[in-house]
Every structure is written in C-alpha cells, then in structure tokens.
C-alpha cells in the first residue's frame, strides 16, 4: 500500500471540500483531497437546488446563525468565482409569492429585517406586475416579494471546476479513496484509506453526510448532526420558459419547502418536503413524490406529472435543535488540534465561497503557515459545450475535431467530442459523463445514449464494456456478454 505525506488533507470532494482546496491553492501548501466516490460533488452537492440565495427563504435572515453570515459574505463572491472558473451563472432573481394578508405581513417583516441587515434590493411586486413577470404562476398569488440578487449555478460543474483549478495550482486529488481510520500521532495524523495511508498535519473534514463519522474517528464530538431528506423533481426542457425567476412559496405544512426554479441548463427544478431520514438512505418514496408534486402545483397549477423527467432525494445534515437547526459546522475541533470540520447543510453551495476563506483562516489559526503561491492562476477554461455554440463555432469545432460532428445524446445534443473531452478530464463513469456533459440528462434519460457512452468510455479508458460502471464501485452496467449465460466462453 502506498504511503503518502502532505501538509493538509481535505476529506470530501463536494462543493465545500473543493472550494477549500481551491482557496488553499492560493498558497504554497501541500494539499491532498480525497473523495470516496468516483467523481466530485456526488453527495449533497448534486442534490442541491442550484440556487445561490441570501438565506431569506429558510433562514429568514437570522444574523444569530453563523450560516447566514457565510451566505451573505458569499453572495458578492459567487459571480466573479464562476467567471474565473468558466462556470455558468445566471442572476434570475427570486419571487416569493404572497397569497394572503397574513403572508404579506410576514414578508413585510422579513423585508425590513433584510434592510436593517444591509441586504438591498428587495421590493414588493403587485399582482399586475407579477402577472407580467410570471404569467404562469398561480392566480392565488396577490403579490410577491422580489429579490433581484438571487442567482442559479450548476453545483456539480462548479465543484468540478474548483477541483480542476485547484489541481492546476498544485493540489493533489484522489478519487475512489475512502477514509477508513485516522490515528493521531505527535503533531500529525495517520489517515488510513483504501488506497494506502496518508500522513498529514492538518485535516479539513468536509465529508458531507459523513462529516460526523470522520470526526468520530479521532474522537472529536463537538457536534451532532441529523440527516434530513428532501425531494427534488426535474421538469422537461419544453417547460423551461414557464417561469423566468426562482419562485418560492411559503409551505403550507411544517417541515416542507416549496421552490420552483429555472436551472442554467433550461430545465425547471422543484424541491419540497424536508423530513428526517435514515443515514445513507437516498431513496425516494411515493408519498414524498406525491407531496412534492402537489406542492409544485400550488405554484403552477397546470403542471402534469408527465412533465417530470427525473426525480431524486436531496440529502442534508442539520444540527440538533438545542444548537438551533439552522446552525452550521465550520469549526476547529475543541479537543483535537489541527482538525477543521465543515458542514453547512442548506444552502451549502450559496455559502461555499466564504466558507472556503474562513477555513483557510481557521487553518492559519491552528498553525498552518501560509505563503502566497506566486504561480496561482485563478483561470480555468471549461471544455466546449457544443449546443451552446453558434453555428459558426460549431462548424469550426467539427472541422478541427470531427468527433464533434457525431451526436451521441440527441435530447441535449451532446457530441462524441464532448464525451471524449470529459473522459480526458477524468470522468470514468456513466454518471461522471452525465454530470460533465449532460448526456443522459434529457427527456429520454439515457435511453438512446447509454450504449454509445459506454462504448466511448470503454474505448477511451481501454476497459471492456462490462467493466464500465454507472457510478463507480459495484455499479457495473452490463454484467454479461450475449451467449455467456448459455455456457459459452468467449
């Protein structure tokens, strides 16, 4: 087994681990980031609603929570970050629908609270203007509170971009590397993984839903977290024009939320129902799906269940009620020196940029020496997204590399060239290709492209098709060759 050494080990390649890695790559520090999955951002990050928010919806602008501060500090950082990393970012604005006077007075209070906190831009929209801005939302809405600051991003793309940029600037990244044990030595940790041991002085524990588990490995028990599961549905792209803004409605039942939002790729996402869950249980249930759909129909009454092309469970860690379930974990362990744990819960993506900075500051306080990396390059270029290019650009791309003339995913018009580029930027699985290129994300959900993408993965990785997985580990897609089960050896 390999023996590695580093100054800082980041455990977890979700958006938080990635943003810390990138932040640390500003400095001359040895950093290794380990991720247990086959690709980055596959935990809570990928189930994020893609919204960059101010915390007005669930946090209700509560300054007493550290999480609110991180979200507000991150707000001005997100757009420049996305620009540097060549990640789509769109400021769509939020409309919080108001259906009655009771809701109106609640939002009035919320607005004045926001203003006191220096969060600008909120304004009330009357019914006529709301109709103009969003003609398809429920007639029950009599007004709305508009927040022009709210934006949307692609959380997985952002995570991958952060990792790529960090890695460009010297961070070592290891996937399918799971932390099994941690032992404390004098001034350092010995971290045992399935791919060898790593000696390090500092640990940043950004293990998402496993953050508590990792902390327990070194007997750090500063916090208790509870898993909360939500339900997210994706609507067909044909309905992409139904709304222009992120729409938020106050939930009618406790423990729910009700959001419908555009995404940077043209589909609408809706998210609802937050309920306690079993750790590691990513399954959806018929009941949650039903509540989810009923809720979104309160925003857009004409929606049909046929318009849903995909749905999944969103999964977050929340703190216990004594601390306040809105509180997050961004802290150095009280007992174990040089261990920083981070877990935001909701909204992790929105809070990420400021969290990254704060973690670096916490590391400095724990004794990490930070010397500027003069070679740091903040710019990362995304590979070409064929269907976003003009005809002229598409033509040019095909003439340079004919594989861009071969469409493998018809729903999202993804070309072989893009899939190959994704493999060469380290996608090794079907889901890896899906999150990087969108092949399989369209309305046929991989019906057409799966065999084609498997072929390309097999060819480019030099592996037989039967070895190709959906998402790493034991998720092989094709278990046998035709005739194999009839006793024929090939």
């Amino acid at each position, binding site marked *: 087994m390999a023996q590695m050494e580093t100054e800082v080990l980041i455990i977890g390649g979700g958006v938080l681990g990635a943003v810390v890695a990138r932040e640390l790559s500003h400095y001359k520090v040895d950093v290794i980031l380990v991720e247990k999955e086959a690709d980055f951002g596959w935990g809570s990050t990928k189930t994020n609603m893609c919204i960059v928010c101010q915390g007005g919806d669930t946090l209700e602008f509560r300054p007493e929570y550290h999480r609110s501060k991180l979200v507000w500090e991150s707000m001005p950082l997100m757009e420049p970050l996305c620009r540097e990393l060549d990640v789509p970012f769109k400021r769509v604005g939020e409309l919080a629908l108001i259906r009655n006077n009771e809701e109106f007075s609640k939002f009035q209070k919320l607005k004045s609270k926001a203003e006191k906190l220096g969060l600008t831009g909120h304004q009330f929209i009357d019914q006529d203007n709301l109709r103009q801005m969003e003609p398809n939302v429920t007639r029950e809405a009599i007004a709305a509170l508009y927040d022009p600051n709210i934006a949307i991003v692609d959380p997985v793309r952002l995570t991958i971009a952060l990792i790529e940029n960090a890695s460009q600037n010297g961070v070592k990244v290891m996937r399918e590397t799971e932390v099994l044990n941690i032992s404390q030595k004098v001034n350092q940790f010995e971290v045992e993984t399935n791919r060898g041991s790593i000696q390090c002085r500092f640990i940043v524990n950004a293990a998402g839903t496993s953050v508590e588990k990792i902390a327990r490995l070194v007997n750090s028990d500063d916090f208790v977290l509870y898993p909360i599961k939500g339900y997210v549905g994706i609507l067909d792209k044909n309905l992409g024009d139904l709304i222009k803004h992120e729409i938020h409605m106050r939930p009618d039942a406790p423990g729910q939320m009700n959001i419908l939002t555009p995404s940077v790729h043209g589909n609408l996402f809706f998210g609802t129902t937050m309920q306690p869950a079993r750790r590691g249980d990513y399954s959806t249930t*018929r009941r949650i799906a039903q509540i989810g759909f009923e809720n979104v129909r309160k925003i857009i009454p004409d929606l049909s269940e046929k318009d849903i*092309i995909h749905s999944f469970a969103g999964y977050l860690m929340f703190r216990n009620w004594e601390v306040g379930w809105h509180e997050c974990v961004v802290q150095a362990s009280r007992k174990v020196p040089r261990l920083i744990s981070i877990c935001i819960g909701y909204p992790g993506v929105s809070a990420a940029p400021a969290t990254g900075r704060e973690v670096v500051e916490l590391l400095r306080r724990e004794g990490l020496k930070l010397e500027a990396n003069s070679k740091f390059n903040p710019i990362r270029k995304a590979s070409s997204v064929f269907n976003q290019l003009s005809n002229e650009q598409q033509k040019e791309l095909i003439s340079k590399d004919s594989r861009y*003339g071969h469409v493998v995913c018809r729903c999202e018009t993804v070309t072989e060239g893009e899939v190959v580029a994704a493999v060469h930027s380290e996608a090794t699985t079907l889901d890896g290709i899906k999150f990087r290129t969108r092949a399989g994300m369209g*309305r046929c959900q991989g019906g057409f492209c799966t065999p084609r993408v498997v072929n390309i993965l097999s060819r480019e990785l030099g592996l037989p098709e039967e070895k190709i997985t959906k998402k790493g580990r034991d998720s092989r897609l094709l278990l*046998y060759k*035709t005739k*194999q089960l009839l006793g024929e050896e090939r």
Partner: protein
Amino acid sequence: MKFSEVDVAVIGSGPAGMAAAIKAREEGAEHVLILERQEQLGGLLHQCVHSGFGLLYFGQDLTGPEYAHRFIEKVRDLGIEILLETMVTQLSGDRKLTAINRYEGMIHLHPKSVVLAMGCRERSRGQLSIPGTRPAGIFTAGTAQRLVNVEGFIPGKKVVILGSGDIGMIMARRLTLEGVEVKAVIEILPYVGGLIRNEVQCLHDFDIPLLLEHTVTQIHGEQRVEAVTIAKVDKHKRPIDGTEQVVECDTLLLSVGLIPENELSRMAGITLDPLIGGPLVDERRETSVPGVFAGGNVVHVHDIVDDVSWEAEIAGSWAAKFSQKGDLERKEKITLKPGRNIRSIVPQTISGQSDVTFYIRVKEMEEKVQLKVGDLYQRSFRVAKPSEMIKVDLPVKELKKLDGRESELNVECEKGE
C-alpha cells in the same frame, strides 16, 4: 448531389423514413435525401431480430433486419441520396434544416418538402417517478434490446420487466432464450399492453409469470439493482397496502409506453396533438406547417410495422407532389372529434375529397362495442382494447355524403348489446 437541390428531405430511415423516401422518388421527386443518425439505414429494425414483420405489407413473416433489407435495396436501386451518422439539429417553420455529421461538418438544406420520420422513444423511469434508490441496472426494454441483440451484452441475469408493452414481452422471450431468468412481467392494467400473440408466444410459451394489476413500488440497491418491491393496485392504479412483495433481481426493464419523437416538430413550430404528442396531420399527412409531412411512429405509435410503412408512404407521396408544385391545393377541413371511449384518431383532419384510412385507439377496454364514424360508418367489435389499434377505411364516395356541410365528424365507441 448539391444540398441546395433537395426536393424531398426525409428525416429518419426506419420503416417509415425508407418507405416515405421510396414513395416520394417513385412519385417523381428527383432529389430525395434521407438523413439518418445511425451508421446504417433501417433504424430500430436492426435490433428487432424477432419475426412478425411484413405479414401484411409483403405477405411474409420477416424479421426486422429482413424487413429493413427489402427497403434498403429499393432505396439504393432508386438512387435515393443518403446521409448516415447525420443528426438533424434544427428545423425551421420555413423548412430550413441544419444537420451535422463528422464528414461534411455542418449541412444547411432548404428542401422543397420535408418528411418527418424520426419514430418514437421510450418512456423512462423518471417519467414514472418510480420511488427508490438510483442504482445501475435499470434500462428501457428497447435499450436492452439493442444491448442484447446488436452490442452483444446482457444487462443482468435476474430480470423483472415493468410494463407489458410489445418490446417488453419480446425482450422477456429473448432474455429467457439467452439464459436469463425473467422473474416476472408486471402490468398495472388488468390486461397486457401489447399484442395478444406476444403474450402467448413470449410469456406463456416460457412460463414467464405475468402479474396484471401490479406495479413496482420501490427499487432497492445502492450500487446495482438488488430487488424491487411490487404491489397489487386498486381500480385507480394505487398500490394496495399489505400486498407488497420483494422480488430479488439485478435488472429492471421498463416497457411502459412509447412517445413520438417531437424535438424537431416543436422546433419547426408544428402543432402537436396534446394527447399523442405527435404532429396534427391531415389525410395527406401534412402537418400544420405547409410542406412538412410526417408518417409512422413520429405521428402516433403503431402496433405493427406494416402500418408504419404504409402511413409514411402517404407522407412521401404528398411530399413529392408538394415539391413539384410548390404547394398543395387546400380545401376546407373536416376535424375528427374523439367521442365516447375514443383516445385518439389519426389523421385528425380530412378534406373529404379522397379515400382515407383512420387509425383509432380506444381509451378503455370494452367488450361488445360499436364503432361509429359520424353516420358514415359503423362496425361491431367483440372487444376494443387500447393496445390494439383499430383501422377504418372510408372511401371517398362515403365521405362525399358529408357534402361539405359538416366541419366536424364524431368518432365514438358505443356499448353494444
């Protein structure tokens, strides 16, 4: 061929596209061009290695590849132009078409007329919102068919099939013959979704359990499918508590319906039938956009391939006429109205000036019914089933009886004695 000179462009080369192209050429269109996204002509016929094709069209029981072969030879003999591995990415309301491939790069065409023959696609897990985890091992039946029959891979060795559509039942037989254990075919309705001959020859012949009025309520397994929970459903298709049972399997196939491909139809601004999802067409198979015709499963999903080809020939023939004359003579149209227990009728409008074949599907299964088309036609059926399309031929002499007085024609399925 210069792309600027295309008379009829046909998008897709399955049983619809080839039939349309051949007909257009035979009707005198000079430059007919087929655009096909795959490496060869024939579309999905290549993965349909089973027989049952061409019984009506050729009077012979052919396999998919054999059926394709006959058309491919004719396409070649007639000098129809072919662009393979070519994806049409744009189609405008004035019939401007953009396609890409790796050889020519980007191709811009402005054909005199267009035939849409892109076929259909399968409904996915996402559209059914089947609860549970998201492991590997869930495929649509058609994707599995391609994997098993063309690519050479068997997805798994213990399979549950949700939905009793024809492809699902055909795959149940194919997988069984390949040594796979097909645990059950699960159908939410009280009757199979496909043809009765497939129920008998694909399921009964191999003792594959068919569970009617059942559905999959949960998928289990983190990495790979490990099991599914199935349950009986009530009249409203809701799972009944207490009837759940867990079926161990490594693969779940879905055969839960087909939907016309309509990306390009939408892009061109063509009016779609809200229920079927394909373009609204008249008896010439012209869509709401003049000069754009459509035939086969892109319009509505047929039961048998012979009808797909026949329907596409109508589209091809009129596309040829349109390309020669620059337009077609247009008459007042009569709209077909679906009445009692009628789900869909194609064509949705007619001129009343020529013979027409209606393709009709009922909503619910009913025994002893009378199908009526206005006062013009009436026929008794022992049974009418949504899974079996009803064909009605109305000659022009019957339609003439309407004498331009009617702008609507009701189609109804009445309960007989």
